């Protein structure tokens, strides 16, 4: 196991912050061709679109987008398997629990064994999630991971989810994020973490528990007005009796227990479900996947995530049709939403994690991503949302908690975050003319897409200087001010 110090060294080497001037070739490999003398200003809408397709566009992404255009850029990102992610994968090697089976992770947290650590799986998963968002070249894929992690939200602190979520993240979310919705839903329904989180592991014939059955229809497929009734919830709960989790050998794996299953006939959504054990609920899952309400519900949520809080109905309809026609091919649906939707994309308020990742990416900071406490204060600690609806995906709920964002912005630029290092002067060195005003223009076009209006820039500089900032202090304070500013909160 690497020490934290070694790990940081590795991180900064691989992310090749420009600080390591001697590592220029590595740096180029990650951030694109730096022969460009200035950060080319970007059209405002293009910057918005790139912010929607990434966790905050790095220079290489800006260059690629400018080179090949929206359609080809989307195609390239959708074909994520063809994008090499070696550097990012390397960063994840210390996190051994990511590749373990449930019983192995459990053993790593079990006090019967030496060196156990109950917090380890959650910490590793959280760090890995942020590291991938920050360093992966498969940005659209990682955006979809975030989307489905909200859609199939699991509260990691509930029961054994503290180690089962790692398996769910890998085998459900990451395996099917850009695959077929049917497979995604199917594996989610068989996922021990989900069954524990929504109490289906105690859903038994003598006393059905409705929790998972309800959310399976309300939140995962049909939507609350999608056409199911309280009776459908109770009947589906009966179909799901006996779907539970192994407690001994291969503990933490899915198991169907026939003796806990209610074999009587059920009626769900107008269909009679005949006694067939585990297959009953699986038949319902197939019904839910092809239900028009599901297509609409998923299309609406995707459009809200990628286009606008209140996305155009016509695009939702079209995407829902694609969903139905392709049997829930997520790539095809997403492609429709992005191609038709990006020209109509409207600003959305950054959720806290996205605020953080965009600040880190755009300033090319090196980080070990152990940033959970900051997310906690901002209100979006990953895998810690208690209710199954996932973190809100519209702007309003996030707009009223500025203080922790300001704290993060200043801490980042002043290098006060342990495990995270920004290299502003070196970053600007790439194109610096040595004139402060021009460095500020470079910095703002880096962070906001294009430079500030001249008057605004000069006013900001004057204000900071007259508040007593020395020449070395001016740029970090100014950069933090931009990151803390209203403009940077929108994407």
């Amino acid at each position: 196991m690497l020490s934290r110090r070694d790990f940081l060294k590795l991180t900064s080497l691989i992310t090749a912050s420009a600080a390591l001037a001697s590592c220029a070739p590595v740096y180029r490999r990650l951030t694109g061709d730096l022969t460009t003398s200035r950060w080319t200003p970007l059209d405002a809408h293009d910057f918005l679109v790139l912010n929607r397709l990434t966790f905050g566009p790095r220079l290489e992404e800006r260059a690629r987008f400018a080179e090949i255009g929206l359609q080809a850029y989307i195609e390239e990102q959708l074909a994520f398997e063809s994008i090499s992610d070696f550097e990012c994968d390397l960063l994840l090697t210390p996190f051994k629990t990511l590749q373990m089976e449930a019983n192995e992770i459990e053993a790593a947290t079990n006090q019967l064994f030496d060196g156990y650590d109950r917090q380890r799986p959650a910490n590793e998963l959280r760090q890995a999630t942020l590291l991938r968002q920050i360093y992966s070249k498969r940005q659209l894929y990682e955006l979809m991971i975030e989307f489905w992690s909200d859609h199939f939200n699991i509260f990691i602190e509930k029961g054994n989810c503290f180690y089962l979520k790692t398996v769910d993240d890998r085998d459900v979310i990451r395996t099917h994020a850009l695959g077929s919705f049917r497979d995604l839903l199917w594996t989610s329904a068989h996922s021990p973490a989900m069954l524990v989180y929504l109490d289906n592991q105690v859903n038994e014939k003598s006393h059905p528990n409705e929790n998972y059955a309800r959310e399976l229809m309300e939140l995962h497929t049909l939507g609350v007005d999608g056409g199911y009734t309280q009776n459908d919830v109770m009947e589906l709960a009966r179909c799901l009796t006996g779907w539970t989790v192994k407690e001994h050998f291969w503990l933490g794996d899915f198991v169907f227990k026939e003796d806990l299953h209610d074999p009587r006939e059920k009626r769900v959504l107008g269909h009679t479900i005949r006694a067939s054990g585990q297959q009953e609920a699986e038949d319902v899952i197939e019904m839910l996947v092809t239900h028009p309400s599901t297509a609409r519900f998923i299309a609406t949520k995707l459009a809200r995530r990628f286009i606008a809080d209140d996305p155009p109905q016509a695009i939702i309809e079209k995407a829902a049709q694609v969903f139905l026609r392709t049997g829930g091919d997520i790539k095809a649906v997403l492609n429709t939403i992005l191609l038709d939707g990006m020209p109509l994309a409207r600003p959305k308020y950054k959720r806290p994690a996205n605020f953080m990742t965009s600040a880190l990416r755009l300033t090319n900071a090196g980080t070990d991503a152990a940033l959970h406490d900051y997310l906690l204060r901002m209100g979006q600690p990953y895998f810690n949302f208690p209710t199954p609806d996932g973190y809100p995906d519209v702007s309003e709920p996030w707009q009223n908690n500025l203080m922790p964002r300001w704290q993060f912005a200043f801490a980042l630029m002043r290098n006060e975050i342990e495990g995270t290092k920004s290299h502003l002067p070196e970053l600007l060195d790439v194109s610096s003319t040595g004139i402060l005003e021009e460095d500020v223009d470079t910095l703002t076009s880096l962070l906001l897409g294009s430079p500030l209006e001249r008057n605004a820039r000069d006013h900001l500089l004057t204000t900071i200087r007259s508040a007593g900032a020395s020449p070395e202090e001016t740029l970090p304070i100014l950069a933090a001010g931009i990151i803390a500013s209203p403009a940077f909160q929108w994407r």
Partner: protein
Amino acid sequence: MLSTFTHTLPILQQESNKTWMPRLAFAPQNTAPRGDTLVVIFLRGAADVLNMVLPHGEDAYYQMRPTLGIPRPDDSSAKKADRAIDLDGFFGFHPSMQALLESWSSKQLAIIHACGAPDESRSHFKAMELMERGVDDERGPASGWIGRHLATLNTGNSSPLRAVGMGTRPQRSLSGGVPVSALRSIADFHLGGDARLLQQMRAALSTVYDGDVLGQETLSMMDTLESLDPSAYSAAHSATYPASEFGLALKQTAMLIKAEVGLEVSAIDVGGWDTHFAQGSVLGLMPNLMKDLAEGLAAFHADMQEHMQNLTVVTMSEFGRRASENGSLGTDHGHGSMMMVMGGHVNGGKVHGEWPGLRDGQMIGPGDLAVTTDYRDVLSEVIMQRLNNQAVDAIFPDYSPRGIGLLT
């Protein structure tokens, strides 16, 4: 000099007049001096009120809850500490709610049972949304009922702390009125650094937030809160707040009220009430939640004794839970809930509302407590009589509240 970063930046310039920009939804209709400070506590997840204030006079309760049911106050087969605490011969507190007896006995705590909303979706998210918006269905206004209360009453109070959402996201109920900030911790609400650095950071922030309502409000909150010293706070009458997030939220509310910084509304969430599994009868998951709730409220009641004449505390939840326990020692989603109202002008020591009963034919849906008092009846009375706002038709559109005699 114009240098508002919301307007000079091209990305936001074109959007500055669009609907997604936060804006005030209403012009104030009335001018009146401010009334009580309102504390709204929302029990997220549909609290099992039938085990909080339980009908020990109903045989059906014990038939439907063979393991979760709390023994009658006079049930000599159970230990005294495990029995319900009788309130009026029919209802009783769960033993974990014992801390509330003092405010109950001093008639500053009222209970409204079988109270709730008409929505029967049994969906947490739909029910919470409709309740926080104070509407019957999606067609109603998108703002929240507290937001509309604040927006329709001009109390001459421009404090950035007029309304506070304790936590990291202000509650939906607060939206659409005046600017509202989330406040997780008074102690953490600062930028850090020495005086010199602070001056630089502040200069940068006030420039980039020039003309931005929320940003200015946050800066002004920072200035106000700087003068408070949470570590030096000592509660009156030896009150001890629980060491929980809820305890901290109440303690911070008390601190803000005593510091007279203009607080009119404090909204507090308490999560964890969605108890489908192993909720516990006398001890366990839900009794721990009840204990935290009761001890928090009791500490607040003691600490704020001298302020009770200007305080109203309301607790609510999106719906109740199934009368019958499920097989996993928990309860599934139900309908009728309960509210508690604490304050110096409450007709307390009394369970209000008509009890619909728990026998077949008295319940609704799959066996759920019926609703006999709409939650808006309770809130309307508080708004009109204690908050000096008569605009309930704007706050609860399409609803005509009934008087229930909750306040004195």
